[in-house]
């Protein structure tokens, strides 16, 4: 398989001996136009990769912040086409771009067609938090055919045996969910995270990124000490939700991205 922009990003950050900063934003949030602006602002403020969320009606993995953002986005009429449009904006902004989505929208769109549209819009891969490896047959054929990274999520409760099975199917990076629970900013990133990353590394040489809970430069620095990527989602979304206007929100996420970009360079 040829290497994706995401693969190349981790080669670069490893050469620079630092972690990558990965931001999550749902398509169509805070509005369709606002999302495009937010993506460009994040890319200009030191974010290395962007995950475009496919807003879904039943997001069982997400805490209240991302639920609220998804609801706003869906009420604004966000469709699959808007997800791919946001993906294209991200991939054209000089960052590696992926989509994060629950499985049903992929199945409904058409499994092969979804992977093809990811590729056509410059996407490097897809994170599928509720797709188990047992149900992945058709998906892995499609990601392989269209040369994109199938990114799987592992959890602190994942057994060593199963970690090996999951990481053997994974491409791009392994998404390590730092705590048992749903998405959302937390005061402390669990100690489970570093243990989980260590366990993942015994099974694969793929980069390992940590998500669920990071919101500050200090936390980014702590995670960057042991992980290849630091994923920040709810913290950006909270700023956009709490801002008095879109302009103010976009200024706030740019500020935070710059801080976090410093953090991921301070960890080692």
């Amino acid at each position: 398989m040829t290497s994706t922009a995401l693969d190349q990003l981790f080669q670069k950050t490893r050469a620079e001996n630092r972690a990558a900063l990965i931001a999550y934003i749902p398509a169509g949030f805070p509005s369709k136009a606002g999302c495009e602006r937010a993506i460009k602002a994040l890319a200009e403020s030191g974010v290395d990769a962007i995950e475009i969320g496919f807003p879904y009606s039943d997001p069982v993995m997400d805490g209240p912040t991302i639920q609220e953002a998804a609801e706003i986005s869906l009420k604004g009429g966000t469709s699959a086409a808007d997800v791919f449009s946001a993906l294209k904006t991200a991939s054209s902004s000089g960052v590696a771009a992926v989509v994060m989505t629950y499985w049903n929208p992929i199945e409904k769109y058409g499994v092969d067609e979804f992977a093809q549209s990811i590729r056509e819009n410059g996407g490097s891969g897809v994170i599928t938090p509720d797709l188990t490896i047992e149900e992945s047959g058709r998906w892995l054929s499609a990601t392989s055919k269209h040369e994109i990274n199938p990114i799987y999520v592992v959890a602190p409760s994942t057994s060593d045996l199963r970690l090996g099975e999951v990481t053997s199917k994974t491409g791009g990076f392994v998404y390590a969910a730092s705590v048992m629970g749903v998405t959302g900013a937390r005061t402390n990133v669990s100690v489970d995270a570093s243990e989980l990353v260590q366990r993942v590394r015994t099974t694969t040489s793929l980069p390992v990124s940590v998500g669920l809970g990071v919101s500050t430069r200090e936390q980014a620095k702590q995670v960057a000490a042991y992980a290849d990527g630091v994923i920040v989602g709810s913290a950006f979304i909270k700023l956009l939700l709490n801002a008095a206007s879109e302009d103010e929100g976009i200024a706030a996420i740019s500020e935070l991205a710059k801080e976090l970009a410093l953090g991921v360079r301070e960890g080692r």
Partner: protein
Amino acid sequence: MSIETSEILGHFGQYGGRFVPEALIGALNELEAAHVAAQKDPVFQAELAELHRTYTGRPSIITEAKRFAQHAGGARILLKREDLNHTGSHKINNVLGQALLTKKMGKQRIIAETGAGQHGVASATAAALMGLDCVVYMGEEDTRRQALNVARMKLLGAEVIPVTTGSKTLKDAINEAMRDWVTNVSTTHYLLGTVAGPHPFPTMVRDFHKIIGEEARAQVLQLIGKLPDAVLACVGGGSNAIGIFHEFIPDTQVRLIGLEAGGDGVETGRHAATITGGSPGVLHGTRSYVLQDKDGQTIESHSISAGLDYPGVGPEHAYLHDIGRAEYRAINDDAAMNAFALLCKTEGIIPAIESAHALAGALIVGQELGPDATLLINLSGRGDKDVSTAAEYFGIKL
């Protein structure tokens, strides 16, 4: 679409499986192992059978509804009286089984979702009986429709958490319960109330309910000396239907008919008839029929019956539909309420509005099959909880 092969069990043709966060896989494997062991464990089976005999009130009886039958083309109508179980519905069968499994797994806390409140009440009951902590998630909309059941759960010592996200009904209560489970999985068992969700739930919940069909098949044979021509049950998630169907699946001469909630009419889009009006997709961890839009977003369901108001259905029903072993029809709110009133006045039995959908189906199928036919109906619950809804529908002042 090709049928995927998989190493895990729990597929019904292309349906079923597991579509869940990795964080839950360990708990699902643990549950599957506990269930498989319990099925083979004579001590567990004896314990459950004793609870059913001395607590649930099993076996539930069969009542022949002769006056009601006059409105159903004269066909013989036999009611399997799950409404007479302790807590007032079939839900107790599954709940006692899973609560026993919870204790075997060494967990002290159960969580449950509920729509009509019947599963929540049953869960709170089992938790009280076995000394477990119990939290029930219930859509805010449903807590209003089913205020009596909220009070029952609280009296039984459960904490009821109203869910204010999404459509504020059963599907959102399941989302919230799954979020709780992902967070507290090491101490908590998710006592799912229907034959949906990730493997092993569809298989396990069916196994705890199949006693309905096992009893009924023997009872009907004893009563009329032959099998019924058709077995009818309402289908929301589908637990009471699979419970009564399962034993009859090999009896291919017996028609299995599931009655879905047609709401205002399937053609209006305001309904909960998932097989009749939906398409294959993934919801709440399983592949089955789903009410969904072109992007795979779940469409909100509508039904006068809170217990059938769900945009998904158990994967085994999807499979039985596709292979033609069972048939599924939609019953509109008005037809269900008509059958509800008719059973009250002809038989002195107030059915749950859910079960009234099966009764409405019997009125139609009885006409189709004529006076020589015998229909077995699963009267899955009693209607006490529905009195205020029915009073409002029929214009009775409370």
